[in-house]
């Protein structure tokens, strides 16, 4: 299994990394908080941790710490537009329940 990006998401990440001027990739993870158990984290990464798992999708490196990986393995990160807003969306096959806002979930 792996964590992947859609082409659209990869293009965005590439653009954001370029405009930020630094960073070696994306860091995806989860933390235990929120109204429905877990919440996603999505960050730029400047320095990798040795334990991080690294995936590559459309030339973008994706880092996931092993503890988070069990919750998001198989996830595809997409870039979507909803109304005026646009941003990243986790398509996570492990999710059983989401809170109404979708920012947190349980597996």
């Amino acid at each position: 299994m792996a964590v992947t990006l859609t082409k659209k998401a990869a293009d965005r990440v590439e653009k954001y990394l370029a405009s930020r001027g630094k960073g070696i990739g994306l860091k995806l993870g989860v933390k235990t908080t929120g109204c429905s158990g877990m919440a996603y984290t999505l960050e730029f990464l400047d320095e990798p941790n040795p334990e991080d798992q690294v995936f590559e999708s459309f030339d973008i490196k994706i880092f996931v710490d092993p503890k988070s990986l069990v919750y998001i393995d198989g996830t595809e990160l997409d870039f979507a537009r909803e109304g005026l807003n646009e941003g990243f969306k986790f398509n996570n096959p492990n999710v059983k329940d989401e809170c109404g806002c979708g920012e947190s979930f349980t597996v």
Partner: protein
Amino acid sequence: MALLQISEPGKSTDPHNRKLTIGIDLGTTNSLVASVISGEAKILEDNNYRLIPSRVLYEQDQILVGNDIPSHAVSIINSVKRLIGKKKDDINANDIALDLADSNDIFIQTPQGFKSPIQVSSDILKKLKKIASDYFGDEIYGAVITVPAYFNEGQRQATKEAAKLAGIDVLRLINEPTAAAYAYGLDTKKEGVFVVYDLGGGTFDISILQFNQGVFEVIATNGNSSLGGDDFDQIIKNYLINKYQLNSQGLEEQAHLNLIAKYIKEKLSSQNTFNETIKFNNQNYQIDISLSEIEESFIPLVDKTIQCVKNALNDANLSIDEIDGVIMVGGSTRMPTIQNHMKQFFNQDLLNDLNPDEVVAIGAARQAFVLSGQAVDDDTLLLDVTPLSLGIETMGDLVERIIPRNSTIPIAKAQEFTTYKDGQTMMKIHVVQGEREKVSENRSLGEFVVKDIPPMPAGAAKIKVTFQVDADSLLTVSAEEQTTGTKTSIEIKPSYSINENEIRKMLEDSFTNAEDDKKFRSLAELIIDANQILELTEKALHNDQQLLSDHEKTTIEKCMNNLKSEITKKNPSKIKQVTDELNNASMSFAQKRMDRSIHSALTGKNINEINK
């Protein structure tokens, strides 16, 4: 689901706690709103318009702002920024063709009554805030608003009041030239002196900034409040009238010519000649103008701005070779005539690669992002971090992490917890350190008990638990019962008696056991849910079993017994299945109880009593 943006390393926000910040350039002629999204400052558009005209139209039943105002409308309030924070004595009332109320405070008469400049500004700000909250589909946490460097305390205070009236939390007011400097990232330099050349539609401002020890200081300002891009349009307009013998008598013709002149100015900012057919007074004119033939007539205006620059340099006691950078702000600075003269005057390349109309809003957005604590400045990388997560024990032998590992210290985080049983009056706060889901596999750091919680139904009490790690790694955990305000706390030194190797081992364990931990957590959560439903059902049976037929009662009791035995067997999918069965079996029971309590609440009362 909600759409996420990419945060800076270690700065992911909690759900429902996203700090959406904006930067607002509240201009005399136009305003803009911007925000940092996934690390990139971006102008938020109003139906594809990036610039929001700073104009307000009050009608009997509505307030229109900016692009919403129809082009044929009259009695539009323009340039209210020129009035904000001023008294009547401060202004030349003849300059302003407005109905003013009869006091020293300035009020503008509108179909909705007298409006102060603060109220008018707040209506513009409300519009900008709405553009942003519509974009995010969420509330705005706070804003940085820019003001001219020469604004006095009264004008700044008035701008803040306007923001407050618009429901905007002002993180900070910053000077427009300072915002421009942020946009160019000059705050990442060591130190330096910068000139900001801001030629707006109707105003010209020059500011000299000194950046020293992380702070921008405005050391001199100068300018001309009646010199701007519009004056260049006038020159082109007069040139057109003469060259093509245009009839420009009527107001409408004048207005049309203004637009044509502005269009030509913009074209001549990116090309050397203008050759197009223009329709004017129902006649087609072939217009051919080269930049070189008209440039000469711009020189007096450019010289005026240069005089202001010289005055400012003089005031600051600086010579041209002491200037480390020149930032161009305002759409009119795109004109090659201005670019060339400034480059020559300062004898250096200009900072002009950002959109000069947007650079102030961009800088404000960046500053708002930093002030809300979402940016990582490079200095913080040197700070200490928490090597392991810190949290407390919750129901089901689970750990709730309050401060995640690798958080920079000092740090404080709070979370609310509640009671699990009806009438529960005590709560144990067990502080643990580590990455595992199961309490016993983390390091126990200490515990204390919150006493005297007023008896309440389960889930109603609110205990706010705060973790605070100071710069010396000292951890203070406090718990406050929200209704009584009773506070209990302990101090712990988490790094005490733990070494690098042990930390390393605890981390590795959490990685190798990640899959088991995940299973443990989901099972524990299922059992907590199941027990809670059992308890609720038991209570309901005890109080209201007369609502049930014998058959219904037996079914529910059978489900309850099933669930109790499945809980001991610890098979997650079975527990989930039997919990659902119990839920289904007791659904009509819950419905009956609900109906009955509504009935008893309403019986014997007349409609007026109920409406109270």
